């Protein structure tokens, strides 16, 4: 059997469902912030976006979206790819690749949050 698993498949899929519900909630708040607080076009203006990145609860929200959607999305991709081909090489490759891509995306998104947060300090 494949030993390259730290978690049981049931644990991974429970995480999949939990991140789905979590992501649904935080993405809904994120979209509401784009359309409910001010008109959509205005909310995308540079100053308004930067102001968002100064708001600690909003930063927490953005980081949550980043983590939850990345985990859910890349696990979803892993599931699809695992179903396409079956061989130890392919499956290990898929596992490593999806985890690496997930970490890279979270890191890249976090970098934006940190940089944008720093822009408003002066």
């Amino acid at each position: 059997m494949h030993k390259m698993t730290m978690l049981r498949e049931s644990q991974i899929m429970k995480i999949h469902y939990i991140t789905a519900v979590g992501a649904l909630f935080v993405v809904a708040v994120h979209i509401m912030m784009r359309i409910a607080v001010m008109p959509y076009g205005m909310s995308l203006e540079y100053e308004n976006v930067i102001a968002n990145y100064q708001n600690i609860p909003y930063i927490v929200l953005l980081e949550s979206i980043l983590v939850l959607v990345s985990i859910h999305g890349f696990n979803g991709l892993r599931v699809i790819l695992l179903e396409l081909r079956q061989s130890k090489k392919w499956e290990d490759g898929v596992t490593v690749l999806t985890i690496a891509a997930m970490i890279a995306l979270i890191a890249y998104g976090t970098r934006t949050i940190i940089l944008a947060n720093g822009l408003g300090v002066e």
Partner: protein
Amino acid sequence: MTEQLIEEIETMEKKREKEKHQGEKEYPKSSVTLKIYRANRRAGESPHYDRIEVPVQRWTTVLDALLYAKAYKDQSIGIRYSCRMASCGSCGMKINGIPRLACYTKVSELQGREITVEPLSNFPHIRDLVTDFSQFFAHHHNVEPYIQNDNADMPEKSKLTEFIQTPEDVDKYLQFSYCIKCGLCYSACPTVATDTQFPGPQALSQAYRYFIDSRDTAPKERLDLVDNRHGIWRCHFAGSCSAVCPKGVDPALGIQLLRGHLLGYSKNEKKVAELKERQKKDD
């Protein structure tokens, strides 16, 4: 002498046949064209379709039509069948693109005057409409489809006992035990279409059938058996298995109920059936 006798018998039979049909109501006869998938890889015969016209009546099934074609038009058609009454599960094939039992599908219920018959998808192809079920049976075997209960082993005949199950206990697994292993669900499943290690709807529903049986004492082991990378989680409830099942087994239901136990939606503890002391001892 013999030839004369045969001739006499044939004349008598023809006469009798004529008399028999005179009293019968005439049903409108028509015909359909069977578009049959033909291929024999080992003999180097490439896939192609043969069109054979066969007469049909109101009650003609696709299997009847195929057997007519085999008997009177082309004896070389490869087809597997046995009971002709949806009990053995041998004549599964794709009829107009959907997996069905040929003996359980009447020509009259199909649209159009041409019926396409092809071997079941997802099963290795052997010849014409015949496929290899060994992978399918191996998946079935892997889920340990039998009651596991140490108490049930009674070496002494005099101590033979029976389990007590209420009708409610039986209802929990009965429909899943109606599976005839015809493979239609396996052929319809989108995961099986690409994942060779996925047990498939048939095997997973059988895992639930034994998991929920109150005579079985190995529920934890059964859950472990399907909780892996290519196990139960690769079912996405596309429902195609249940849509094609000819026996009402509803494999999708069994799979989701089993997954409910893995997800913690349902309690894993179950009341194991008790063994009842036999009243009369066998000699």
